[in-house]
């Protein structure tokens, strides 16, 4: 579902007081996008509604990061990630994403909610080289599955060598 629009290399920014909000159904199809989302990503509401959320997937994002997140969110955990997204015109923007499952009265997942905030510079300084390394590793494999299977252990090992859990690292970086 990712768009083929060539990347421009131009980075977009949004205000520190703003939150990009989107909601999806359980299949990841967009059911709501707030005005900040539409403005920054450069889409109209009609263009994104019902589309898969990876319409904004940027090729610089390692697959293992998403894999790691989805494994956790399936366990009904909230998840955080530093993510670079792609705009409709090929620009990009970095976010500090917080994804939570939306549960019904019986505790079943009925959709996902994502709030994205301006990431801290400290976080980006740590995350960018890490993603580059993971992406480089993934580029040696052909299928998406082979790619994340190769890079996920490296990500987990990195966290272990830092002696922190993923959540602790995230909160250290955003402080």
């Amino acid at each position: 579902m990712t768009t083929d629009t060539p990347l421009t290399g131009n980075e977009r920014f949004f205000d520190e007081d703003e939150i990009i909000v989107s909601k999806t159904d359980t299949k990841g199809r967009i059911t709501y996008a707030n005005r900040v989302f539409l403005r920054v990503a450069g889409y109209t509401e009609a263009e994104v509604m019902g589309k898969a959320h990876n319409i904004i997937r940027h090729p610089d994002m390692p697959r293992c990061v998403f894999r790691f997140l989805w494994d956790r969110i399936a366990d009904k955990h909230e998840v955080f990630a530093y993510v670079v997204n792609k705009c409709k015109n090929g620009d990009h923007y970095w976010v500090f994403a917080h994804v939570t499952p939306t549960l019904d009265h019986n505790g079943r997942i009925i959709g996902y909610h994502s709030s994205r905030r301006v990431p801290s510079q400290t976080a980006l300084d740590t995350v960018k080289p890490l993603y580059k390394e993971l992406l480089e590793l993934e580029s040696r494999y052909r299928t998406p599955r082979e790619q994340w299977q190769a890079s996920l252990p490296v990500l987990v090992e990195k966290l272990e060598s830092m002696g922190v859990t993923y959540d602790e690292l995230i909160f250290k970086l955003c402080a």
Partner: protein
Amino acid sequence: MTTLDYSTQAPPSSGSDSKWIHEATRVCTSAAQGDLEARILNIDEKSEFAPMLHAINHLLDMTDAFVREAGASLSFASEGKYFRRVLPEGLLGTFGQAGAIINAATIQMGAEASQLHEAEQERGELINDITAAKDVSSDLAQSTEDIEKMSGVISTIAYRTNLLALNATIEAARVGEAGKGFAVVADEVKKLANQSAEVTKEIQTNVAAIKVASTETVGSIDRIWKVLDHQVKARDAAVSGKALDTED
């Protein structure tokens, strides 16, 4: 109680303005009932209501963000994880202030939890020391008993030695002049036996004093140990959310 349930009213068939008013009412009513999921979609930018409808969505987004942040931070804290802060970015005004209050509270909880943890460790060490002291004092009580037994044996030996010395004196007297030297030796033996008996008595007096002291020591240590044990159990019960008296 009569409540107006706007959400079940059918949208009026004519006029897009009425449609937007109905949408706004539906979403606000759901939100008031605690459903922060509903949003107004496909807003007609040409409608004069568009800014109001966007404002309603924005209000819901902000409220939803705050509720998710506060809930996440506090549910982590309730699991003993205090690093999960309410993210202040994007939470304006009162939302931000309430978030800051929650963060101050979780920081405080974290600090107290780590102090408690340290105190727990110290108490653990104290319990180890007390347990060791308990062992030492019961060893001491055992040694005192042994000394008491041995001094009893010594006292018997002294008594019998004294008798032997007496007999030796009598025998020495019977042989007359030839036994004089032997009588001197017997007398010396008797003196030694008497000395032994006296020293043994002193030992027994001291041992009795040690016994009283060590019984008191064992009693005190036992009481301290029981207090600590009770504290540890009370603390465990508090942590697991159970009262002490519901344990059995």
